């Protein structure tokens, strides 16, 4: 079965890194198939930025995401820009401090979305003490809420991807992310 995932935020939040870690966990460590693509160009350097990941237990032919079944939003601007084609019944994970849920309540109702909150940026700042690991806190929430990749593979993928010397920090961020995610709708 194929799962189409989109992660959107603003440039510099580590949205791209988050997508790479998920896809790498799925393909190298869970031994499934995965493709990761991303937006290039000016939007990747500030403004709305996105990465897309397809995970499947069979070979992936079409590599792009058309109607995401999982949408992770770390900025309101990016959410509005990229949410239109979200699949009915999809999982939407948002950082409630950066996204105004009220403004998208129509689409949440119409598309019957399942909404999760992860206060990933605040947690990164206040619990971990480094705002920069907000993306990995969000990754922890993603794994807890969706189960698309296994926890063990996610951790291996983090260790394989993050700069040397930051492993413990990132693993701690991942654990916090798992704890803080809440199903709202």
């Amino acid at each position, binding site marked *: 079965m194929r799962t189409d995932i989109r992660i959107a935020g603003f440039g510099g939040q580590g949205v791209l890194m988050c997508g790479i870690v998920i896809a790498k966990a799925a393909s*190298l460590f869970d031994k499934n198939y*995965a493709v*990761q693509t991303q937006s290039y160009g000016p939007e990747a350097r500030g403004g709305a930025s996105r990465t897309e990941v397809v995970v499947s237990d069979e070979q992936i032919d*079409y*590599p*792009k995401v058309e109607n995401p079944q999982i949408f992770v939003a770390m900025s309101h601007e990016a959410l509005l820009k990229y949410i239109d084609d979200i699949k009915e019944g999809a999982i939407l994970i948002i950082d409630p401090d950066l996204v105004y849920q009220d403004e998208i309540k129509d689409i949440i109702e119409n598309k019957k979305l399942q909404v999760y909150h992860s206060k990933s940026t605040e947690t990164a700042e206040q619990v971990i003490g480094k705002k920069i690991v907000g993306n990995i806190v969000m990754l922890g929430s993603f794994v807890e809420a969706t189960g698309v990749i296994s926890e063990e593979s996610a951790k291996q993928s983090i260790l394989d991807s993050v700069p040397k010397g930051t492993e413990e920090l990132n693993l701690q961020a991942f654990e916090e992310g798992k704890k803080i995610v809440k199903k709202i709708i």
Partner: protein
Amino acid sequence: MADKELFVQGNEACALGALAAGCTFFAGYPITPSTEIAEVMSRKLPEIGGHFIQMEDEIAAVGAIIGASWAGQKVVTATSGPGISLMQENIGYAVMTETPIVIINMQRGSPSTGQPTRSAQADMMQTRWGSHGDYETITLAPSSVQECFDYTIKAFNLAEKYRCPVFVMADEIVGHMREKITIPEKVEIIPRQMPEKTDNYLPFDAPENGTTPMPSFGQGYNIHVTGLTHDKRGYPSTDDEETHTQLVTRLCDKILKNTNEITSIETEFLDDAETIVLSYGIPSRSALTAVKQARQKGIKVGYIKLGVVWPFAEEELIELTKNAKRIIVPELNLGQIYLEVDRVLGKYAKVELLSKIGGALHTPTEILDKIMEE
């Protein structure tokens, strides 16, 4: 050492493929969306005693790799459309001097500087006859990150075997996308064949298969290399009709007469197919998805993917499509390889173009809708 698995970009996979094939020299000018190839080569080549040179432009880049190839190195450059345009003069020189070089082109929106960060397949005719004169080249079209690795190795081997420029024509999507690749423990490499004698030999002889061992500067060989029409010794002979006819015919024939050796075609569901979607490069992934979806609806549709676009696999395609009534060609341009497909198969089936430009890939639905039109 066992096979190694990595999760990398298409561009990185091209660079790793070049290194696995024995590449020791890269000259180029960085350009989106191929820049990561230069980045990886600039880091890795010095580690193995090779050389990376950032040139002043792409004209010089091909000049440098031609020179390095004649110095016995395995060479590559990487670029995108604007660079490929500048390279054309020296590509012709590599053809005429029978120099093995590999050129990787991550195609982007064009003409001119066009769309640096978007995908296209609009340089396909340029790899065939972008330089002046009658000639043939070899062009491969990867559609996945694994194929970026595999086809780059294949490109190096074909360049050695046929002593000609070989193009790896990918695109922005394949270049920037990340997938898992498997790097095999052992990679088959065709080494440079050197002549047995250092003088009184014919470096531009015309043996049965059309290519001859290639000498190398600095190894004691007497060599003369020129873009002028030359005889079998390599000396200019620009007025003799016979010499020119023999030389240029051989340069073409060494590729064309080995078409079946060079080309590679993947097929699915052809047995009873009345409609066939024929593609190359990245649209083939949308095509395969669409063909599978159509099959689930009970439509008799098949799939052909050209791994090698030039030389064009005429005979094999006629055979593979002999029962088809309709051929659909999706391309990220306004119709380039479609014209060749129509020339070859148009007598037997209705050939239809499904073109797309602007930077995005055909969706499977777009191809499925085309299949369902009849």
